[in-house]
């Protein structure tokens, strides 16, 4: 039993763009050479704007999307080449929570069926045993009384309640690793904290590891020990959350942090420092460092050579020619 629950080595996920029946116009390089590792009981926040590839990375780690290149290790075992049949057994141990609590649950299923589904897919337990497990899981996510909630349909629940159902579903097989893709971004501000605290509680109880995908860096600080910043399919900075957020090294990380307000009335007097431009087209990213067209510190080398991740201080790596 290894310390690392999930590891990716130079992972690449490219999506071909077809023109007509046979010709390929190009590839969307959603994940373009990512290496990371998450230990047991640890949370890694994957931060970036939409279109940077973070959702694709999460799905590739779970092999919901097939990787194009690179290696993935789950609990020490390489799973890159496993076919779907062999993966099915592992799927009990690696699950996902999706962003949209309205769309990630089948609207024609009642709460009981939704949570029962993983048990049914993997043929676990008799009918009575399953009822017991589902009721227990409802209590765990604080949807009580469980008998009442089990009978309800998704459209009768609030966003926060639905997300709890999704969490219960993800946890019922007692996985080791959960990819949480923006689990609270569609919920009200006051409900977010509640859900994140619930996830943290469950993590402690079951020694879970999370990949917490989000664009909301502020929650990343509260929820995760490590943070990885992603831009245009690559990881540009990674390290302990408090360190990266207090002393960001990569210009993009700095730009992200600068762009996020805290509730402070003096904000209205300041024009915020914002980096110019838009994220690049993943089919044809800029040469060299992908961020160079927008970076305020661009040097000549940045336009030509891709920077590699370098350890600048203990546990803190950054891919930038400034270092």
């Amino acid at each position: 039993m290894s310390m690392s629950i999930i590891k990716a080595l130079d992972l690449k996920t490219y999506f071909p763009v077809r023109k007509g029946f046979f010709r390929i116009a190009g590839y969307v390089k959603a994940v373009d050479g990512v290496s990371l590792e998450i230990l047991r009981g640890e949370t890694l926040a994957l931060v970036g704007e939409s279109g940077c590839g973070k959702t694709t990375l999460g799905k590739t780690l779970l092999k919901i999307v097939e990787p194009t290149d690179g290696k993935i290790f789950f609990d020490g075992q390489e799973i890159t080449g496993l076919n779907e049949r062999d993966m099915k057994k592992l799927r009990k141990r690696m699950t996902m929570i999706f962003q949209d609590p309205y769309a990630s649950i089948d609207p024609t299923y009642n709460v009981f069926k939704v949570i029962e589904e993983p048990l049914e897919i993997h043929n676990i337990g008799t009918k009575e045993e399953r009822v017991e497990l589902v009721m227990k899981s409802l209590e765990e996510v604080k949807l009580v009384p469980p008998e009442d909630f089990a009978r309800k349909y998704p459209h009768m629940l609030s966003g926060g309640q639905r997300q709890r159902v999704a969490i219960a579903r993800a946890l019922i097989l007692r996985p080791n690793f959960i990819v949480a893709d923006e689990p609270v971004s569609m919920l009200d501000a006051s409900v977010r904290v509640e859900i994140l605290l619930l996830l943290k509680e469950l993590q402690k109880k079951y020694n879970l590891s999370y990949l917490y995908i989000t664009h909301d860096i502020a929650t990343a600080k509260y929820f995760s020990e490590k943070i990885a910043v992603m831009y245009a399919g690559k990881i540009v900075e990674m390290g302990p959350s408090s360190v990266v957020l207090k002393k960001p090294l990569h210009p993009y990380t700095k730009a992200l942090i600068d762009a996020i307000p805290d509730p402070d009335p003096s904000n209205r007097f300041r024009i915020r420092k914002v980096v110019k431009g838009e994220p690049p087209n993943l089919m044809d990213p800029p040469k060299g460092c992908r961020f160079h067209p927008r970076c305020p510190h661009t040097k000549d080398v940045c336009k030509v050579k891709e920077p590699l991740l370098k350890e600048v201080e203990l546990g803190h790596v950054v891919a930038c020619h400034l270092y």
Partner: protein
Amino acid sequence: MISSRKEAIQIFLSSTVSKLGIILLVVLLVFSIYALTAFPPDYGKLIWNNPKAWENYPKSAPPAWINMFAPFKHFEHKILTSSEPVVFKAPDGTTKMIYYFDLDYTADEFPTFLSMSVKGVKYWKSPPVIAVKLMQPNGKVIDIMSFAVSPPRSEEKPPYIRFSKEPLTLKIDSDTSVWRSISAFLKENYGLNLSPSKIGENPERFLFGSHEEGNFSTPMKGKYRFEVVATLYDDKDSIDKISLVLGGSVYGLLGTDVIGRDIAIGVLLGFPTSLFIGIVTSVIVTLIGGLLGIVGGYVGGKTDEVIQRISDVVYNLPLLPLTIFLIFLMGSSIWNIVLILIIFGWPGLTILTRSIALQLRESQFIEAAKAFGSSSRRIIFKHMLPQVTPFIVAQMIFYVPTFILLEAALSFLGLGDPSLPTWGQMLELGFRNGAIYMGLWWWIIPPGIMIVLTAFTFVLIALGMEPVVNPRLRRG
């Protein structure tokens, strides 16, 4: 999204449209069941298409009820059957069977013919003799005729069987002995001197004519009674059935066609046939098209492309020329027609379900099921099908009238199955025989209305299904 079947049914029944549709559907089903149970399965081939079965019927006769609206009362074609014959032994040792046929004459015209039908005669020694008498309302009695069953042939042995497969039809009005009897009757009762051949021009006139009005030009109205006496020479002799047919110019509920077939029966037989064609074709087309659409939409890639291209091609094939060609090759049985309709019909649904499947495929809950390890088959049946089913069911219901109309159209163009009395067939025959030009409305309008009504029934039901399928259309 619908959360349960119960809710779906509730929504469906909430509109008046669907309630009306259901009522009409029940009516259709009742008629269909009646048609299926009241007639033997080979009725179509044996009787419907057998002109001999209808030879006693008036040809192209309007329905009898037009008499209610016409000042001139037409003679309604009648097939008289008697009550049980009175059987007794005569003093001379023979058995006499007396059949009584009553007729209440109200028409303003004479019958077009008079014939007697004898079925199933069995005798051992001498052939039976059948005598026909007519008692007029004014009390006078005419001895019309006396007829002997054919004697045994040389090689025959008793019992001698006659008229068991095909009944004997005696055209009373074309029998010269009858003319002579009538002539004698007239001379005796009215002192008229009319030669038999003169009477033979229109014997009915003299049988039923009124002497008071002069010259027997109008009928004597009132209660008539035919007395048919069969004399049997052996105790074991028997006669199955005797009936009298008076030819009329109007008949029945919906009149007759050019062969003399009762159009009401034709229309009735059309119920189960149309429903069968519509429903069977619709269900099979839905299953094929729906499943292919879901599979193509969900699996994607080359499979989807293949299915799409095939359905595009088939969808755009010209229905009519190919149908003519295929019918020419395969023959025009009803199964071939159904087969052709299925072959050409499935792509429409494929396109619809494919687009729904494509949409669903991208939904997060399908993704979630995959993430938890669900197989594609399980996703299709447990997640996609429940969402797609309402659409498919609505489409299926909508297809029923489409195929009924298509079959009617094909039949109308002469490509249908002539052995099956479908409404389209009736229309085709009518048009072919110039029913429009001759004003034989009773032949064209009933099947036409039935086609429309059946289509309308299913359209109503499909409309009722719409709020179930499209939540935005739901009331309240």
